[in-house]
């Protein structure tokens, strides 16, 4: 196994050997972007927890923070689980470059490498959610450094435990499928998608079931409220780190240590289970390499055509190709669904806040427009994440197949326009669904809904063009891996642009709601058109110089 780790460490070293300055800059920018996000979560959580301690009511002091811990760890756990499923499914069984290692006698080591990579790559939610929460708790409630370290490692163990659990489930489902002679990777992906949906549904039901208003009405003693909450969340593994944090807050380090110990033991158990399953890696891997190689098939079955008619024009070829290649790819669908779930969850959480705290329905003008403005920024930011994953790498991903469009008598600008049209339509539809999820349950008034919709739709169209243009200007045929393409300097640049633009949109909307002056839309529209046109022009210029090596 050591040779694999040495390979990966060399790969990281080599990454910085070439174009050292720009790659260091990219890394620094990414650290900055993640750091800013983590700091934002830390700041708001610290303020929120500080607010609960200003009261003398034990319910506010104990029950509300515990609810926050439970929610944070539950959502963190769900995100880790889902992202490990997506990463694990495709990285364990569908990496084209693994064949030669799997053919060597060192194949078993690869399972450990992939296992640890999946755990590390999927642990990002602890950096942006769980650890900022821990540091916020420590800032408000102050506990000693050894306990901070204990909690720190317990949270990392929790993350690894959830990731390991996801991989074990993938392995067990695969083994069962092989036993019943079911060899389709799509079926495995479908089953895992259902498991993720079930997990998501359980998380959502739990969040909705605990009614804060109801809890606030418990007046006599805090115990029933705490008991109810503990019971509600105890079915989830996230309960243990949440209880650990709760006891650290209360100054019960012994109890906290007990819960940290439970987290450690659960991780140890999953590692033992994976160790026993890893011997089956080759056995499962072989199954999912099998396609339906027709050259060996004795019987040829005439299937019904999936696409009945050829497209009517070269432009329609590009549009249809984008539809087919995106919607038939299980990996793309997984990522799309994952990011959409995050967006809808964010919209849902703001809805809950609005319903319970009543910010958006406040009589006060300064507060009335706050939530819809935050909502706009949030939706645009999540749409940017989709753009970064799907639109930005779109031209680079043509890579090995670029000879098809490159040799055809079709202007590359038309291809660009078709790609832009496809993604803008899809993302605008997603944006519209997000608006509906937000607006319908709260019966948002027309004077709020109309400007909000206009700003979001303009924003989506503009950001889509910026993402596609940046991906075209900085085209990279060295890889077709969207993750590698998205984390390049231009990808990080896009995220910074989208952060500024989303923030600006939210601020502008807030000004509109505050002043009731709808003319603010006009400069926003003009600015968006300028950005759109400039990005498109620069992309067209780079297409004129484009070479398909």
């Amino acid at each position, binding site marked *: 196994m050591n040779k694999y780790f040495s390979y990966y460490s060399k790969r990281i070293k080599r990454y910085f050997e070439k174009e050292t300055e720009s790659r260091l800059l990219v890394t620094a920018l990414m650290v900055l972007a993640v750091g800013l996000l983590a700091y934002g979560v830390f700041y708001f959580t610290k303020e929120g927890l500080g607010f609960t301690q200003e009261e003398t009511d034990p319910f506010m002091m104990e029950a509300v923070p515990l609810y926050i811990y439970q929610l944070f760890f539950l959502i963190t756990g769900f995100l880790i689980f889902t992202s490990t499923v997506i990463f694990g499914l495709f990285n364990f069984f569908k990496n084209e470059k693994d064949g030669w290692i799997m053919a060597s006698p060192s194949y078993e080591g690869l399972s450990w490498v992939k296992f640890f990579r999946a755990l590390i790559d999927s642990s990002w939610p602890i950096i942006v959610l769980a650890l900022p929460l821990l540091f916020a708790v420590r800032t408000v409630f102050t506990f000693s450094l050894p306990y901070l370290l204990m909690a720190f490692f317990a949270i990392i163990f929790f993350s690894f435990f959830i990731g390991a659990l996801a991989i074990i489930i993938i392995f067990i489902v695969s083994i069962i499928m092989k036993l019943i002679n079911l060899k389709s990777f799509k079926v495995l992906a479908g089953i895992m998608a259902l498991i993720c949906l079930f997990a998501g549904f359980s998380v959502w039901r739990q969040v909705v079931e605990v009614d804060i208003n109801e809890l606030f009405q418990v007046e006599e003693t805090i115990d029933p409220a705490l008991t109810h909450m503990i019971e509600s969340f105890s079915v989830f593994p996230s309960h243990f780190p949440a209880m650990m944090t709760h006891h650290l807050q209360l100054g019960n380090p012994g109890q906290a240590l007990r819960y940290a110990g439970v987290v450690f033991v659960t991780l140890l158990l999953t590692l033992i289970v994976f160790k026993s399953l890893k011997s089956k890696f080759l056995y499962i891997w072989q199954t999912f390499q099998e396609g339906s*190689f027709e050259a060996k098939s004795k019987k040829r079955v005439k299937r019904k055509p999936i696409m009945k008619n050829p497209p009517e024009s070269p432009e329609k070829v590009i549009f*249809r190709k984008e539809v087919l290649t995106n919607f038939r790819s299980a990996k793309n669908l997984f990522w799309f669904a994952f990011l959409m779930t995050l967006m809808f969850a964010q919209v849902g959480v703001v809805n809950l806040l609005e319903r319970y705290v009543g910010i958006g329905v406040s009589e006060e003008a300064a507060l009335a427009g706050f939530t819809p403005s935050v909502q706009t920024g949030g939706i645009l930011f999540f749409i940017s994440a989709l753009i970064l994953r799907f639109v930005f790498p779109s031209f680079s991903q043509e890579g090995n197949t670029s000879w098809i469009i490159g040799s055809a*008598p079709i202007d590359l600008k038309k291809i660009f326009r078709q790609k832009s049209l496809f993604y803008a339509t899809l993302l605008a539809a997603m944006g519209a669904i997000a608006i509906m999820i937000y607006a319908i349950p709260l019966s948002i008034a027309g004077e709020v809904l109309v400007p909000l919709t206009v700003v979001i739709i303009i924003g989506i169209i503009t950001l889509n063009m910026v993402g596609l243009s940046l991906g075209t200007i900085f085209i990279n045929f060295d890889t077709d891996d969207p993750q590698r393409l998205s984390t390049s300097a231009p990808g990080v640049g896009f995220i910074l642009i989208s952060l500024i633009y989303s923030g600006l949109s939210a601020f502008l909307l807030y000004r509109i709601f505050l002043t009731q002056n709808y003319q603010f839309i006009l400069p926003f529209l003009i600015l968006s058109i300028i950005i759109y046109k400039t990005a498109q022009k620069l992309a067209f210029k780079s297409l004129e110089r484009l070479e398909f090596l």
Partner: protein
Amino acid sequence: MLKIKKLTKKFEDLTAVKEVDLEVERGEFFSIIGPNGSGKTTIIKCILGLLHPTEGDILLENKSIISNPKETKAKIGYIPDEPKIWSHITGEEFLYFSGALYGMDKQKIKEKVPELLKHFNLEGIERKYYENYSRGNKQKFTILAALLHKPDLILVDEPIVGLDPEAAKTAMRLLSNFVNKGGSIFMATHTLPVAEKHSTRVGVLHRGVLKETGSINQLREKMSHPEASLLEIYNHFSKNE
């Protein structure tokens, strides 16, 4: 039909192709031979407009490919050495897409595709996803895609790599028929027996420089060796610096 004038292609400090002058007539099967890295694929990519020539021009029926890309590309078919296409589409869909990209009428595409599939006995598998085909079957689909829109010139980069002997024979028969009907072929290969059997003329490319062109007999005469094989011709002209 195809005229390459003083074509030079540089990649930073590497000159991949240097001042190549070449003509391919209508109804001619021209093969360019040379080892890996000699610049064969670079010339093909310049003709296709996938690469911009550093110097020189390429004319198809007296029209510059550089200044009239759309018009000239419509008359060219291309068979790449790596038959990689978009993922998650079927062989039939790929042919549909290819036809439509070249502006073919959709009814015509629907009529033509089943006819073409018969050549390689591909009926019955055309509605399977492309990634599930063997390399040879993938190559067969790219050959059919190049023929679908009835081009005037077909650019071929290693046509029979990955094909079984029967399919290789069929592929070369299809290309020969295309030439017999007045089409032109520009083929890059290092499979010398194939070039020797089918080419009306060959060119020897060495380190980006076109050393010699002519029919195999003309080249034999030039080296005063009437029995020379194409390998001997190649060795002779490529060493003659």
